[in-house]
């Protein structure tokens, strides 16, 4: 290439125009005397338009722009877990070493530690036929996660040589007959989805331990969910709860244009949190991407792609991966900012016309798939959305809701009442229950779907009754409807409300959720009987055992005692009849 090096013609914030090179779209280039990292995002006559991932102040026209020949890629291999990266996969601890506590610029850092040795255990032998995606060996990456080293996409052949022992990620561990040298590290361009054989329908729920999510609005493994909500309504807390407690094998957490302190919190907390499934620190299954609101917007734009590529890579090993992006609105805003610098024709509210297709492409990278090697893996994507003024009629919310199958709508009113999680049970939805119900019947209880239906219809009925109560007061209702209101209140306060910061309440498994839901329904049954037998409603709802049952959920060992508490409650409710 004769035109490897060009010069800067124009600088406008994060967008730089170069002349004298003819790079490919999405090629990475080095900009200016400091060699700032940038990516070509538009070709325009003899001009190449570049988004720069670092601060551009002080850069002048005439400074050099150098092609690298590479598109924006991530390094994939052992060493991704427990890491925290910026939007372009630079490890933040490495940046601290070279720059100090403030992020300056012009520093490059590898995503993977190229020096570190990993113990590679081959699972193929000389003479085996291998193809793209096949696992050729494993590395114990963290105490819980076995890293499966795969043949990169597009490569296949017969194993000519296979090694065993300690190697770093750039050393050859396998040679194929065609001469391909396989290393533990592979690179993948972030804007291209990694290949798989086919998509499966999701049939297994992603269990999150969050009652309202699992029970009423479940997400499937490989599914997509959007969490829109105004500021302070609980998007981040919900995403962090999912990162902590969902039963995925791997978690990729993207802090996209949000607060620095929130990432620090995750970093501080996760190493001390224990995975209920494995008994190991949650950090061992987690990779974090942090491109906070004050870090360069172009890198923010890239951060979601960096994250989802890492997620797909683990999916290809046959793992269930859950990816959280907080907040996709900041990503969309980064697109908008870049687009306006490009002077593109704006669509709705200044967002580029391609906003909805970018959103769709991103969520399309979720799914439960048959991997190239015939295994089963999934990427579930949960995106927070931050609509201006909390009004979801705006383009990012609307674009998201058109694609995702689960909508967890956060509600400012509920947050203000400190009803957490502030998910509105009346307008939220999940389209997955029909495909998951068989799983619940087989694995939890045969009537699980019916119990769910009863609980959600009680909430619907409550909403209708509340309209009447607003007009005439609750005393004017017949006693059976007053009971319905009490039962619904129990659903809200005992079941839907869940304190993320309480050691015990923070997580309930599906069996416990089912038992709690049944408890509410049996309260309803017993009370109906008692009322028919002449008890006063006041006495029925105030039996002490009911308070114990409701408060008990904050105590450890609750799942062992709940049946006993239920018996007490039934007895006490029945007793209200005799005293009358």
């Amino acid at each position, binding site marked *: 290439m004769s035109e490897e090096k060009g010069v800067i013609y124009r*600088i406008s914030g994060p967008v730089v125009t170069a002349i004298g090179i003819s790079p490919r779209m999405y090629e990475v280039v080095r900009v200016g005397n400091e060699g700032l990292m940038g990516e070509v995002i538009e070709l325009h006559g003899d001009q190449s338009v570049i988004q720069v991932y670092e601060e551009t102040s002080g850069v002048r026209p005439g400074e050099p722009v150098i092609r690298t020949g590479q598109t924006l890629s991530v390094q994939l291999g052992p060493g991704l877990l427990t890491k925290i990266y910026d939007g372009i996969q630079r490890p933040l601890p490495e940046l601290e070493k070279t720059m100090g506590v403030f992020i300056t610029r012009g520093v490059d850092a590898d995503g993977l530690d190229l020096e570190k040795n990993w113990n590679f255990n081959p699972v193929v032998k000389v003479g085996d036929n291998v193809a793209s995606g096949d696992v050729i060996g494993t590395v114990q990456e963290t105490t819980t996660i076995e890293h499966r080293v795969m043949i990169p996409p597009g490569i296949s052949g017969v194993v000519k040589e296979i090694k065993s022992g300690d190697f770093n990620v750039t050393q050859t561990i396998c040679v194929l007959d065609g001469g391909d040298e396989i290393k533990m590290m592979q690179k993948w361009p972030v804007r291209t989805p990694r290949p798989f054989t086919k998509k499966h329908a999701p049939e297994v729920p992603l269990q999150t331990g969050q009652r309202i999510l699992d029970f009423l609005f479940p997400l499937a493994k490989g599914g997509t969910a959007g969490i829109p909500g105004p500021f302070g309504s609980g998007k981040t807390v919900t995403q962090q709860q999912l990162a902590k407690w969902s039963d995925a094998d791997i978690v990729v957490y993207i802090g996209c244009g949000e607060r620095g302190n929130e990432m*620090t919190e995750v970093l501080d907390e996760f190493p001390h949190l224990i995975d209920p499934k494995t008994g190991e620190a949650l950090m061992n299954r987690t990779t974090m991407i942090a491109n906070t609101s004050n870090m360069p917007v172009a890198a923010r734009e890239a951060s979601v792609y960096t994250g989802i590529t890492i997620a797909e890579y683990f999916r290809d090993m046959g793992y269930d991966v859950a990816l959280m992006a907080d907040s996709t609105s900041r990503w969309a805003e980064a697109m908008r900012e870049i687009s306006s610098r490009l002077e593109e024709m704006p669509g709705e509210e200044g967002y580029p016309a391609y906003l909805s297709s970018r959103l769709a492409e991103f969520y399309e990278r979720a799914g439960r798939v048959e991997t190239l090697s015939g295994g089963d893996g999934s990427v579930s994507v949960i995106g927070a959305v931050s609509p201006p003024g909390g009004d979801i009629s705006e383009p990012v919310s609307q674009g998201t809701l058109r694609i995702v199958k689960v909508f967890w709508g956060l509600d400012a009113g509920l947050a203000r009442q400190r009803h957490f999680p502030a998910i509105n049970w009346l307008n939220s939805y999940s389209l997955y229950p029909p495909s998951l119900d068989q799983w619940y019947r087989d694995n939890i209880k045969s009537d699980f779907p019916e119990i769910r239906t009863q609980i959600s219809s009680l909430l619907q009925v409550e909403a209708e009754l509340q309209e009447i109560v607003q007009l005439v007061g609750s005393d004017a209702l017949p006693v059976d409807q007053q009971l319905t209101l009490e039962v619904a209140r129990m659903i809200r306060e005992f079941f839907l409300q869940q304190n993320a910061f309480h050691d015990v309440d923070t997580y309930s498994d599906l069996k416990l959720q089912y038992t709690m839901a049944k408890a509410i329904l049996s309260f309803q049954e017993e009370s109906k009987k008692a009322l028919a037998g002449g008890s006063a409603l006041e006495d029925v709802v105030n039996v002490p055992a009911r308070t114990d049952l409701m408060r008990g959920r904050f105590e450890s060992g609750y799942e062992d005692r709940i049946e006993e508490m239920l018996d007490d409650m039934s007895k006490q409710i029945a007793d209200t009849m005799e005293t009358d």
Partner: protein
Amino acid sequence: MTGKEYRTITDVKGPLVFLNKTEPVAFGEIVELRLSDGTLKNGQVLDTSDDQVIVQVFEGTASIDKQTGIKFLGDVFKLPVSKDMIGRILDGAGRPRDGGPPIVADEMADIIGAAINPYSRQSPSSFIQTGISAIDACTSLVRGQKLPIFSASGLPHNDIALQIARQAKLVDSDDDFVVVFCAMGITAEEYNFFVHDLERTGALENACLFVNLADDPAVERLITPRLALTAAEYLAFEHDYHVLVIYTDMTNYCESLRQIGAAREEVPGRRGYPGYMYTDLAMLYERAGLVKGKKGSITQFPILTMPGDDITHPIPDLSGYITEGQIVISRELHQKGIYPPINVLPSLSRLMNAGIGDGKTREDHKSVSDQLYAAYAQGRELRGLVAIVGEDALNERDLQLLKFADIFENQFLRQSRDEDRDIGKGTLDYAWELLSNIDTKYLVRLDQKWIDKYHPNDKKN
């Protein structure tokens, strides 16, 4: 670094000057403009190419003509910083305003401010006692937090900010705060109010002021908070100070931002504000915090007035999306004559949990705070109901809660401008006393063990 002077202005539009045929000019470079009458103005490069340079003029473009000479100073905007800034009053561009000598630079600091590496941050967790019960009990502030005051015109947000600045202290150390005060487009009267108060209490000696008033150039407001934060960072991270940054009024800052956007004919975002306003504000607010290995800290108290008292307006909305909670001032409480008129219900401190409890404030703090909040919220809701159905329709519990809402406002919230309540005796014990107006059986948010320990066992039990 005095380069060549150009007289190649082609267009002047709003606060922007367009010129061509220059040597290569750096993005963000500082510019000096010399008008034909010798007046000097300053500006900064917003867009640069071989053919055209766009300069934003801080003092506004009045009187600029095609003869105006433009010099590029070869560097981005830097502020001379030194410890001697404490006790000084500077203007909105960082020049002395108090008649004193220029600041002798210990260092020249880039005012844009690099982002703190999230990995290098330390989670804020030290409780700051403000002496204001509503804040200390319900929306506790911690060192390193950014907690804005959402107010509206005509409300006493300045008094509250000053009271916090005067009374803020850490319960677990004697470290004092240094106040960096940043005025953006406020009136001379408001400014005098601040300065007199700081003088009266001797706080001025421990403060550094950056002042851009209503009649100072609007575009200059875009750099004033950056200067203030640059000074704050220098004091916090080079000299171990705990810095409290108060800036007022963020609304004026955002108006200037909108003005620049309009002059550049950018596609506007919501209600005419630039689409990048979120990021721009984050570049200010995120300069709060603590970093590993440094003793100092930056705590931010931005004040903003909500246009039309509307919390969904882009200025409070985008701020709320970045800051770690908000303190909301209520016109209704103000009209009832209650100071400080803080509505705790929409107020929130997201870092509160990390800063309170045993060993920090008191073991019962969370419990008391939840109970106060719940009881007051229910009491207020009942006021609405009573207006329709009358008090007769209420049961005993509701009557008590209804009464409590008044007690809470008139006794717990209400305090005088120089009343500095201690978190233990002055705030939490007082809360228990007031809560004892409600039967214990209705105080469901209080743990029994705290009731046993702290409840002032009145007759009702």
